[in-house]
């Protein structure tokens, strides 16, 4: 049985087309732009080296995401494992946005993402933003479809709570400084995540 293989030129073109997605997925895992690009580059090169084992007709995006994810988790001491939200990024999010309430949401979302358990965060990003199906995401993460569904739903719930709580502090006072807002969201997110470890058992 010989499955057709993409020739190198076609593979290279498709892989190059996926670079923006590799970068976006890496950024969501690592949180740090420079480290994320290192990760995305290594994943791209690994995918290129492994091109013989890619089966044409299957989803190349899911295949490269699997490689990237394995790389991320296998090298724990690499810089890309650092998961933090830089207060300067937070400040920039707020300043660059012309709609303050939407900027607040976006900041709360960024912050919320950093405190979600890793497995929930990646499932939510892949399904909610990366355009992958539950089935593809399950394959990438090496677990059952039902597990992905429950991770996504728990992640959505937790984020909704974080965002809702963060809004309490801002309504009616547009003068709150961005750094205070950031501290406030961070604090609330911490409280929530320490509570949510308990229900992450099931």
């Amino acid at each position, binding site marked *: 049985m010989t499955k057709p293989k993409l020739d190198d030129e076609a593979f290279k073109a498709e892989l190059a087309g996926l670079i923006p997605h590799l970068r*976006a997925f890496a950024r969501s895992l690592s949180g740090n732009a420079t480290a994320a690009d290192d990760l*995305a580059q290594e994943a791209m090169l690994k995918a*290129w080296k492994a091109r013989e084992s890619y089966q044409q007709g299957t989803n190349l995006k899911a295949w490269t995401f699997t490689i990237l994810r394995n790389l991320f988790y296998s090298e724990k001491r690499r810089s890309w494992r650092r998961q933090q939200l830089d207060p300067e990024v937070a400040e920039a999010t707020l300043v660059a946005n012309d709609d303050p309430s939407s900027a607040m949401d976006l900041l709360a979302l960024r912050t919320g993402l950093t405190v979600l358990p890793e497995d929930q965060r990646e499932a939510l990003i892949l399904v909610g*933003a990366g355009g992958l199906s539950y089935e593809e995401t399950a394959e990438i993460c090496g677990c059952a479809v039902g597990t992905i569904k429950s991770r996504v739903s728990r992640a*959505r719930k937790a984020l909704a709570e974080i965002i809702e709580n963060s809004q309490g502090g801002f309504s009616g006072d547009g003068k709150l400084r961005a750094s205070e807002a950031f501290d406030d969201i961070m604090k609330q997110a911490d409280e929530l995540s320490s509570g949510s470890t308990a229900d992450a058992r099931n």
Partner: protein
Amino acid sequence: MEHQSSGSGDDDRSRKLRQKRIGDQLRRLYDEVTEEAVPVEFLNLLEQADKSKNQK
């Protein structure tokens, strides 16, 4: 439409609305990155890898 008893329906709607907003913002965060220009380094590395293959 009776408003007295529609409390849970409103909750439901506002929950859905919030979730939609989170979904939109999530995609925005992701697309912020996919819409960036790809650093030339990526394509250079890929070309290099392709060329070095032929030298083996």
